[in-house]
């Protein structure tokens, strides 16, 4: 178990690195969207310019805002940084683990959605309240299949149940063709992180044309910049998490890292293409899709993993 | 399909008990004057008995009365029949046809708002389009509403149109 200094350095480096990677991924998303629509699209420094501009504006707090209004973006950003640093730490140094860090990562990844709900509810605006309630329903919908598919991998990794991300990653490293549970779990997880990111077809909470940005309607200036940066970090951390758990992670050595980056880009491309080719779904359709479509699939692969016939390929 | 002239002749005959002048201006346009006490009955007759479709209603301000015109389209016969009823100033009142046509609800509210003509038995007699802080009793579409600009504006416009350099305002 490495020292505290190593952890602090990793936290700072991983947060900053994931932020930069996330801003780059955001630009890729906007550029690909523009190209698909036969447009030119913004230049490469556009997300950075957005953040710099937002940091320079004034912060307006509405009169009826509650206590969590300014707290929510700060906590969301902190949780996203912690999750990102844990994910990259498990990939860089699989020995640096503690039992249960998968649960910590899942918990930290759920906190930004909870903070969006808190911020929206604390805004004192009916649009924000509607957006917060939609985000709540969406959270209930997509967390279940995500956790089921991750539990399947937890049960099946290394032939015995293990709860640490480093062990999961190490057990699959170097594997190019994962097992059935991993493939199906990957597909399920991609849908779930599409919803967690708030990307079309599941951007129900922040539906611009319907409820005026939903929970973010009263935010301006630096708090909005913090939410923007949280989304950027999630945009980089979530595909990395999915690759780490289901697809072998960023393995040891240069080839492992190169393969890992290719896998990460593949997941990002799937997310961006899904975003560009689908309309927004209604909240009840989304809930039916997650609960009655993806959850049974999650239960099936969990059963297979438990039975052992679809376990993760041992090294 | 009934002949247009036959239908119009029957209409004129049926309406003659309750209406005044029946003027067929040309092939496609008919104007009927109806006194205000009979206007609801005439509208009902045109809609229910003859199958006319209320296209719209318009209001007019003349010197001593405010007129309301209901325009009925007979699409199959290619003719438009206009019923004209009125309310005498200073407090013009007319029976409302909103019970008969839900679509006339907003039309009559707008006429009340801009011309000041009251509609009896209207289910929702509120103003429609003027702003919340508009003063009561001031109706902008009446001819005695003071025009902004006035004589100075007219001179400016004339100077601009005739190109006579600077206007003498």
């Amino acid at each position, binding site marked *: 178990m490495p020292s505290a200094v190593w952890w602090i350095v990793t936290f700072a480096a991983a947060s900053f690195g994931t932020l930069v990677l996330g801003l780059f991924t955001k630009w890729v998303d906007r550029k690909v969207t523009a190209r698909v629509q036969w447009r030119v699209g913004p230049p490469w420094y556009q997300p950075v310019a957005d953040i710099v501009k937002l940091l320079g*504006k004034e912060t307006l707090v509405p009169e009826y805002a509650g206590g969590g209004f300014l707290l929510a973006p700060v906590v969301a950003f902190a949780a996203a940084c912690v999750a990102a640093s844990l994910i990259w730490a498990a990939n860089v140094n699989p020995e640096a683990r503690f039992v249960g860090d998968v649960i910590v990562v899942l918990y930290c990844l759920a906190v930004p959605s909870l903070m969006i709900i808190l911020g929206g509810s604390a805004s004192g605006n009916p649009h924000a309240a509607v957006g917060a309630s939609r985000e709540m329903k969406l959270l209930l919908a997509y967390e279940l299949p995500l956790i089921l598919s991750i539990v399947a991998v937890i049960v099946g990794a290394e032939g015995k149940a293990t709860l640490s991300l480093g062990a999961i990653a190490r057990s699959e490293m170097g594997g190019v063709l994962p097992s059935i549970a991993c493939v199906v779990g990957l597909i399920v997880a991609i849908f779930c992180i599409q919803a967690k990111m708030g990307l079309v077809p599941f951007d129900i909470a922040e539906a*611009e044309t319907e409820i005026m940005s939903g929970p973010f309607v009263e935010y301006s200036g630096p708090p909005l910049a913090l939410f923007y940066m949280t989304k950027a970090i999630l945009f980089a951390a979530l595909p990395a998490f999915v690759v780490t758990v289901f697809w072998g992670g960023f393995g040891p050595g240069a080839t492992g890292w190169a393969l890992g980056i290719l896998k990460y880009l593949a997941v990002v491309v799937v997310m961006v293409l899904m975003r560009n080719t689908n309309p927004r779904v209604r909240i009840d359709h989304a809930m039916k899709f997650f609960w009655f479509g993806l959850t049974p699939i999650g239960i099936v692969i969990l059963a297979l993993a438990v039975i052992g016939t679809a376990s993760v390929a041992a090294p | 399909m009934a002949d247009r002239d036959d239908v119009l002749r029957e209409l004129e005959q049926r309406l003659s008990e309750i209406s005044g002048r029946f003027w067929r201006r040309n092939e496609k346009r008919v104007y009927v004057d109806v006194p205000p006490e009979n206007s609801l009955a005439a509208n009902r007759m045109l809609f229910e008995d003859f199958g006319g479709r209320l296209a719209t209603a318009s209001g007019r301000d003349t010197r001593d009365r405010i007129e309301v015109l209901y325009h009925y389209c007979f699409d199959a016969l290619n003719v438009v029949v206009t019923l004209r009823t009125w309310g005498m100033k200073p407090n013009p009142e007319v029976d409302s046809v909103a019970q008969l046509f839900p679509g006339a609800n907003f039309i009559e509210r707008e006429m009340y708002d801009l011309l000041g003509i009251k509609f009896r038995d209207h289910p929702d007699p509120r103003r429609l389009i003027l702003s919340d802080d508009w003063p009561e009793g001031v109706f902008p579409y009446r001819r005695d509403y003071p025009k902004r600009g006035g004589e100075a504006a007219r001179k400016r416009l004339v100077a601009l149109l005739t190109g006579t350099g600077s206007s003498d305002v």
Partner: protein
Amino acid sequence: MGLALWGLKKSPWVYHANVGACNNCDIEIVNCLTPAFDIERFGMVLVASPRHADALLVSGICTRQAKPRLQELYRQAAQPCIVMCIGACACSMGIFADGYHAAGPVDKVIREVDPNAIIVYVPGCPPRPQAIIAGAVKALQSL
């Protein structure tokens, strides 16, 4: 401050408000987002909340009913925020100047709230998307 100004110039988020227009100017504003003109390459995004906006695109003469609401919108926008008057009706009320419901052109209404507001005029009826983009670019360059 140099960095904040650079950010403002490179990423102006616009909010569109119609205070009494015939909708022609609104159609031209939305045309700017289409692939033919594509203002996203300048970083301009149409946002849904005035709090997120750096530029208020206002079209229409300001009617009596809309005047307090436009002033409230300007107050809700996070400073620095410029106001762009799109179309002849917003610049000066045009042929509707003597109307019964006209409550002053947009710049008069905004200056009641903030005498130092930055206001940009894009005349036309309706102004072409090229004119709207030129007006926005000139405004950003002069900041």
